[in-house]
């Protein structure tokens, strides 16, 4: 297979990339965290997949479970008017339903319990659940016409994160790591942050996995708590000086081994150990937000002081973006509101609204927003009818693949802009549908990658993030 390591090639590439003052360790670092700066281009017979990028990095605030577009960003007054009436068969059409509501004897339309108003110069409608997001709508680009093919979480989240409904493909971040390498020499190019103690629909290691790409392209999870990266800390009883001493002796042994065996792999290993040693200080430094000024916590909310919250992760995402980490993937679970939606969605909104908005404004103030892409959204939308009994104060919504809303902000996408529209039932797209593969193609495009050309040959076939589909949504680009 093409992705087998060829260390010799790496050496030459490494030399090219090395910042000379950092010596061997740094050199390997460049090649290891950034080992394939050009491997994607080396695949035989391909034209260059690259052109001038609009953004250098992505922060993807993934809202797992399927946030209800009808309560957040896509107001449908008709649903309030028709509250309790059955979903007309003509609207539903051929749409298959999940087994969780398809057995119901009726499909009563459910109007949102939350009020909407228009905000900013763009006049974008946002519900009362998202007051902070409402204030930054002029920075955002709403896509109201997202749709997917899967109707259940596992296939849907796997689809939007890897381009296939079933396990086995590389995730978006690993494609980017493979295609673009990393800009940072002390941190991985693809970092994952998960809100702690949330529960909800499961996450899977495959969502940030490398699939068939070499495994250094998988996302590295940074966690709140003492071991920010697994096995990062020295064992107790071994302080950094001891470790340095140990590594120095180990290097001597490895050097002797190399002299005797001639295998360049041994040197590559030494370089990895040096990289690991440096990560032991670079990662804790990133994770330590104690030096952030109070006004930052005012922006992100008090939650941001509590490590592992969504707000704290948003703040970390900004710090990682500042250090040019290529792809920062957040996950926030808990949006799967089949029942008791009016109650549960308030908690979810409260946990995410302020920090999401703050992240956009913080990046803007630092001049980072112009070359960073922020994405907020889940794996599908929710039905306009109630799953379970509709009462005056309560209802639930089932999964709905036919339409959902996401927003993006940052370099390359139009500000204060809304793209696509759904019908007055909030069930079908009536204008400018955006398929998951279109979204992925657009994301790659913003990073300067032609999604049809970033391929990897595996089992005889050239695979892409977008399979054999996807069109860049040009109309949302600046």
């Amino acid at each position, binding site marked *: 297979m093409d992705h087998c390591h060829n260390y010799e090639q790496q050496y030459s590439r490494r030399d090219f990339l090395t910042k000379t003052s950092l010596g061997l360790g740094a050199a390997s670092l460049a090649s290891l965290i950034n080992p394939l700066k050009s491997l994607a281009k080396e695949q035989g017979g391909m034209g260059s997949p690259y052109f001038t990028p609009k953004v250098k990095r992505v922060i993807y605030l993934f809202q797992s479970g399927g946030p209800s577009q009808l309560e957040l960003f896509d107001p449908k007054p008709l649903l309030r008017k028709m509250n309790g009436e059955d979903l007309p068969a003509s609207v539903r059409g051929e749409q298959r339903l999940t087994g969780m509501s398809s*057995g119901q004897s009726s499909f009563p339309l459910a109007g949102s319990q939350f009020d909407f108003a228009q905000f900013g110069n763009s006049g974008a409608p946002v519900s009362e659940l998202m007051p902070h997001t409402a204030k930054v709508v002029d920075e955002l680009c709403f896509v109201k016409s997202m749709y997917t093919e899967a*109707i259940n979480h596992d296939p849907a989240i796997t689809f939007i994160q890897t381009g296939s409904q079933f396990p086995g493909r590389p995730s978006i971040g690993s494609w980017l790591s493979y295609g673009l390498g990393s800009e940072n020499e002390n941190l991985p190019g693809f970092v994952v942050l998960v809100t702690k103690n949330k529960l909800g*629909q499961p*996450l*899977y290691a495959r969502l940030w996995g490398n699939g068939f790409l070499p*495994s250094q392209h998988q996302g590295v999870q940074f966690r709140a708590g003492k071991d920010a990266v*697994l*096995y990062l800390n020295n064992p107790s009883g071994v302080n950094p000086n001891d470790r340095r001493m140990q590594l120095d002796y180990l290097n001597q042994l490895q050097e002797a081994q190399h002299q005797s065996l001639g295998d360049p792999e041994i040197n590559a290993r030494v370089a990895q*150990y040096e990289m*690991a040693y440096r990560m032991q200080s670079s990662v804790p430094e990133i994770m330590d937000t104690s030096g952030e000024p109070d006004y930052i916590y005012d922006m992100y909310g008090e939650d941001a002081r509590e490590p592992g919250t969504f707000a704290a992760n948003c703040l970390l995402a900004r710090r990682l973006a500042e250090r040019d980490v290529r792809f920062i993937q957040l996950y926030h679970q808990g949006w799967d509101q089949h029942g008791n939606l009016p109650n549960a969605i308030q908690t979810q909104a409260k946990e995410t609204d302020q920090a999401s908005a703050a992240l956009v404004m913080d990046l803007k103030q630092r001049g980072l927003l112009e070359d960073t892409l922020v994405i907020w959204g889940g794996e599908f939308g929710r039905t306009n009818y109630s799953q379970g009994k509709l009462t005056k104060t309560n209802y639930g919504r089932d999964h709905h693949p036919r339409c959902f809303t996401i927003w993006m902000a940052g370099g390359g996408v139009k500000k204060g802009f809304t793209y696509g529209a759904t019908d007055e039932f909030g069930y079908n797209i009536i204008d400018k549908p955006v398929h998951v593969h279109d979204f992925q193609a657009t994301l790659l495009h913003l990073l300067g990658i032609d999604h049809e050309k970033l391929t990897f040959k595996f089992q005889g076939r050239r695979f892409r993030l977008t399979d054999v589909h996807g069109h860049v949504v040009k109309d949302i680009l600046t």
Partner: protein
Amino acid sequence: MYTMIYSKYIQNLIYCCILGSLWCCQQKLPEEVAQAYETLPETIDYNYHVKPILSDRCFACHGQDNNTREADLRLDTEEGAYAALSSGEKALVPGSWSKSHALQRILSDDPEIVMPPPESNLSLTDEEIATIAKWIEQGAEYKPHWAFIPPEKPELPESKQFAEFVKNPIDNFVAATLEARELSPSNPADKQRLLRRVTLDLTGLPPTIEEMDAFLADESEDAYEKVVDRLLASSAYGERMAMEWMDVSRYADSHGLHADGARTMWPWRDWVIKSFSENMPYDQFATWQLAGDLLPDADRDQKLATAFNRNHPMTGEGGVVDEEFRLKYVFDRSSTTATVFLGLTLECAQCHDHKFDPLSQKDYYSMAAFFNNVRELGMTGDDGDYGPMLLLPSNQQKQTIDSLDHLTEELRGDLTEIAEQKDELIEYLDELSDKSSVATPQPVGYFPVERISSTKDTKGNSYQIIDRNRKTRIASEPQLIDGIRGKALHFDDGYETLALEEIGQFEMNEPFTASVWVKPDVDQKIQTIMATAGAKNDFWRGWEFYLDSTNHPAVKLIHSRPHNMVHTKSLRNIPIGEWSHVAFTYNGGGKATDVEIYVNGKSVATNTLYDRLYKSIKTVGSGAHQVINRPIQLGKSYRGFTGEFGIYKGAVDEIYVFHQDLTPLEIAQLYAQTAGENITNLDLPEEAKVDHVLQRNHRQYQEKQQQLRDLVQQQLEVVNDVTEIMVMEEEPKPRPMYVLARGAYDAPTEQVPPSTPGSVLQFSKDLRRDRLGLSQWLFSEENPLTARVTVNRYWQLIFGRGIVDTPHDFGFQGSLPTHPELLDWLAVTFRESGWDVKSLIKTMVMSGTYRQASVQNENQVKDDPDNVWLARGPSQRLPAEMIRDNALAASGLLVEKIGGASVKPYQPEGLWIEKGSFSHELLHYKEDEGDSLYRRSLYTFIRRTSPHPAMVAFDAPNRDICTVKRENTNTPLQALVLLNDPQFVEAARVMGQRLLANGGETTDEKINYGFRLATGRKPTEKEVGILKNLFTEAKERFTSSPAQADSLLAIGEYPVNRQLNETEAAAWAMVSSTLLNHDEFYTKR
């Protein structure tokens, strides 16, 4: 339209002019191409040189898939390529590249003309163009695909130059290639490295010091062979071979999708270990796994082996479309089989014909048809195993079960015999004839359904009840309407239900009866009358009385769907909008015939849909699956995920539940008393009366009946605890397989019988069209792939790189064999040996090729970094499992127990719960204690969505799909694992203790001992010096801060040896840790 045709015409004219001019003026190849032409081999071979180019760049549009074929041109066959194009030209004209239209298009600079077209993002290099040109010049000869021609045993090439190097036939082939490439083999590896290499390769473990010393001391000629034989005979060999098979078979201890709950698969893993250890012939090993259940009189192990094809991921996600996922599992089996045994990427033909290989979409579904005939579910529960299942009783359990079975048979015979002796009953029957009514037993619940009222629970919450009975509960607002007698309850919308508490829990051996009047409003869907049966996460356990979609009353007694239940259905249905009396009785015997269904007082004929119940039917909760007394629910089932909620629309009245099986007369009585009838007017058959008498008046019958229930109970007590495993089992009636348009589960087109790809080898008419036939096809002498693919995979295992470097792909896009004749020699020899795996492996490790030193000189680093031509011995970073096992072995921690349930060694906290909380059994990773912490990594619990991070760091796959080749990467995370993972830190400190206590007197001796434990060789003087300095410095540090020594020694569960000096022990721990990070520790050299 006209314009379009016109412009096309003009365009073609222009092409012709341009190409015409090309022919006229440009008889030479472009300079760069001409230069490349000069460097080409003398003879250009279609298979080896040309097809890889054509396949990769041309076949997607000019290959066998006629749905995407452009310009009606096929380049994958001679006929297609030589045929005249619509323009009159020919794509290929043998002997003349300049007349070959295809080459002219390739050479063109015009983006409108050039091939491949720019929008394909494909292009050809100068060398590739030259190759095609030269091939055309030499006659453009097509040949069948090399891998599809059955291998023949080639002559052994003689090697004069390297005669000393040649130890066995492998070396003849390798030497010939080396000679041809002007390379030379390396010197033999030194004994220490060779011993470690072969011990690692054959057992996954390092040699012990004693084994090293013995080998070093053994100067006999066959010293090495004795070692090889010893290793092949060891049980660790079975474990090592099984380790690789786990990747191939996508083995895991969890389901892999959504909740990713627990499954029990380890008994199958143990069977694999045993099979390798006993050197089961590979054809048999494979046949049992593919079709063991179909062998004549299949025994337990043969059935157990088929768990291989139940290892695929499964989902328990509520709401999925069952058929979509069921097919996914079928496809997984079929692709896995194609990958492992055929080295084909068959899965590429799921949505359309294969783009490169001669595999049609029809081939894909024909192959899948072999695996489609299993009674299984697409959506299962979050945790647990689902049918078909195999019970794995111990010998003692098996004996008990068999004898109970035997007794049950006898007893059933006795009961039938008694029932047939009707004469004895005449007296009673006469008595009965005069009676206008019979007494009915005391019910455990009777609900006349007359009123709705409110009450409060102990917490003060109010809820609605019927008949002032606090053990009832209604949800939502069902209406009281006029009933068959007094009032009745009417359900409407799926939210209205009635629950009857504390009376519905019956065991499989307990008789019970349910009786109710119903007036259904509809007959569109399955409607639950009354049930305790649960949903997917409690195995749907319990019982259910329901109306099918045409209102036939039916009964299910469920332990677990789809494989452990009774399901029987009335042949008579009931009308809409009228009151009917429906009832069923169950006598506790465990069979479908032990259930009787009644309509309007009379027993009705039934159709048994499934009859295999062998475990408890007591309802359990989801999650921990502990027994809970789930209320009987009316109005709706408890199912909530399948889209089939069992919503009953209509009325119910006069509900009875009995903890006895009522007799036909008693049921008639229940009907008659409400219908205002007299049972004498019911025209009941004689059998009804006979049964009544037998059940109520015949003491012997009653006793036997009770004995039967007791036997069922005894059986339950044994069987309930018996481990079960998911296996393959054919349904009696084959399930049809269709070609699915675009691969979509809901788009069936043409029906296809089970078959194999004809391009590989026709499926003989003499073979059974089932998995057993498939297996025979795979291992037939004419099959060109199976033997080659297998020897190649084992070659990769030993040499690190396959002779074909794409072990999963022997198709057009796969790599070509570097040593084709060697591959064929191995394949035929392997087959002729009776598929003897040990002999194959032995041949490989006995070869001179294997026994070379792996030291690389500068030229090798430059010219053959991947050791393609085998001018040195194999060398590679060890797989994840071996690295950990070696640390355990070096420290002495390793517990060499074989088999058993998977174990949970150290793992950072919280990794499972942060992924999801749906699986109850796998909610939190709970580390094991004691020996289980130190088992070989083959036994480490594999959870697919959260694989062990230390294993993943070293490229262990997560087992979502069949993997026949692992990555071998080098990352900083690997360094962090070896330095900081408590497993390795503990190993280092225990190894430190070992050096201190047993490593000899002097520091030098201890270092020597440690170095040998970790790397298998003695250190050089220089290495001793370095480690000595490390020891001295570490000791100084720990002496100045003894607390540090303390805390380092406290890591891990293994007890600290308090006899030893702490600072010294800690310093030796640092030395050991350094050794466990040494190249030669984690690399095979």
